[in-house]
């Protein structure tokens, strides 16, 4: 009798494993405490803070120009878009209209950033699922975008190209040619992405129907970006609240209804194509003009609160600046998309297998420095 009781006790025992902070599939220092029953995930509990640098606190002692270089380091794959978010907030507060040229360049740069971010997503997602070759193809193509960045901005990932009122320097004379060259090249090789992964029967089996978020759940949890749009939640800031030159271009908002891993992946693949179309519409029409608006050397925002959202590669990045009239902000808050997208991980992964947890985590495309800030 006693033996039997013991056995029951063992059956109810959860097998707890620590995924991370150092683990190949967490893409950084995220720690997931996973309670398992056999291979089935019972509960996932994210533990954060391994790369918390207190960016919001640091911002309180920096000027608005100096904040820019910190935002590069939040979501390092959307560095340009993060820069733009802060710049737009400051410009909105000062009620400055930036030159048309700046708007066009910012939009092109943002879309290039989105493309390279999704390329890296494709690369690492393939690797998460065990297709190691994807990693190299993805990075190979991403290198070309980074070269464009390096030529104009001077940095590859950490670009710091935007500054309140405009850009740090004008685009390189070679910029347009290089971008067109890249678009031509990338249109030629993007079919490989589909051949290698999208169409693959193993990949489809692994990703279809996994980690489903319905539209209602996605809205309730505030999922944005491709993650939210794969669930049918129309949340593209570029469409709803156009900024920079997005009101001048036509593009499709990628929406799917299924909300599973496969459609999150598909949403990103489609977004890459859509981004190329946006760049196509803008690249030949960059107006001549100054690359920055006239700005005072010391920027002091009028007292008040300012909020601006932009669409990064992962979702909505909100910048909330409270100013008390000084050259330093009183409070800066970044509503980072990854932080919000991570929250329902437990909901998505419960009841699936460890391998699915990796796939689900990969499909959210988490950037840990953006979560911790």
């Amino acid at each position, binding site marked *: 009798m006693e033996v039997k009781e013991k056995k029951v006790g063992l059956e109810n025992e959860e097998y707890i494993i620590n995924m991370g902070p150092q683990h190949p599939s967490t893409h950084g220092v995220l720690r997931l405490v996973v309670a398992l029953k056999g291979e089935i995930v019972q509960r996932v509990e994210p533990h*954060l803070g391994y790369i918390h640098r207190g960016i*919001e*606190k640091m911002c309180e002692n920096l000027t608005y120009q100096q904040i820019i270089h910190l935002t590069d380091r939040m979501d390092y794959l959307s560095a340009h878009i993060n820069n733009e978010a802060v710049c737009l907030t400051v410009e909105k507060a000062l009620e400055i209209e930036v030159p048309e040229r700046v708007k066009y360049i910012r939009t092109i740069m943002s879309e290039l950033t989105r493309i390279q971010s999704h390329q890296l997503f494709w690369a690492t997602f393939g690797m998460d699922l065990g297709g190691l070759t994807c990693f190299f193809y993805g990075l190979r193509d991403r290198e070309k975008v980074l070269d464009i960045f390096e030529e104009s901005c001077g940095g590859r990932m950490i670009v710091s190209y935007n500054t309140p009122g405009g850009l740090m320097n004008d685009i390189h004379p070679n910029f347009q040619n290089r971008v067109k060259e890249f678009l031509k090249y990338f249109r030629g090789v993007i079919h490989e992405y589909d051949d290698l992964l999208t169409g693959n029967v193993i990949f489809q089996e692994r990703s279809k129907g996994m980690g489903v978020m319905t539209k209602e759940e996605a*809205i309730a949890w*505030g999922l944005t970006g491709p993650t939210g749009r794969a669930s049918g939640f129309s*949340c593209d800031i570029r469409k709803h*609240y156009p900024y920079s030159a997005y009101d001048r271009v036509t593009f499709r908002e990628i929406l799917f209804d299924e909300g599973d891993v496969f459609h999150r992946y598909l949403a990103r693949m489609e977004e890459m194509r859509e981004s190329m179309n946006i760049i196509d519409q803008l690249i030949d029409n960059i107006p001549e003009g100054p690359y920055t608006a006239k700005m005072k050397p010391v920027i002091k925002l009028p007292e008040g609160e300012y909020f601006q959202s932009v669409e990064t590669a992962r979702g909505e990045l*909100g910048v909330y600046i409270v100013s008390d009239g000084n050259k330093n902000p009183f409070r800066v808050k970044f509503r980072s998309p990854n*932080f*919000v997208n991570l929250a329902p991980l437990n909901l998505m992964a419960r009841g699936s297998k460890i391998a699915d947890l990796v796939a689900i985590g990969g499909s959210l495309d988490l950037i840990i420095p953006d979560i911790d800030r």
Partner: protein
Amino acid sequence: MMEKSQLCAALTTIVPEAVTVEGKQFAELTVAPQNLRSVIGRLKEDPGLSFDILVCLTGMDYGTDLGVVYHLRSYALNHMAVVKTRISDRENPAIDSICSIYPGAEFHEREVYDLLGIKFNDHPDLRRLFLDSTWGYPLRKDYKDDVNIVLK
């Protein structure tokens, strides 16, 4: 899509206990902490407003008071509103959690608790998120850290 002034008028009728001001960007509501949950609940449920998504939840330290700022958005109707609340008790600040209304608020509230020390009543899992329990509340204005924060 409603104009800001229209939205303010609608807000005043639906949530009369909140003070509605037309801010620079959005309609701003100031709510007493005890009314917070019911106000936000009504903002979400009302079909004319339908604030379906909590965009941002910010903890604030105004120097004397602590505060929480909620940015709500309706994607269906394309408008935004800001709900603000202030807590004067710095020693033991507490406010109602809105996790039951917006499940996505869970992490946001944990973050605010972690960095500002504001407790959220009825939060399902209120623990510190980034820092360990021996740490202070770094986003408070009176936070002192002589080792890591060097001001020139």
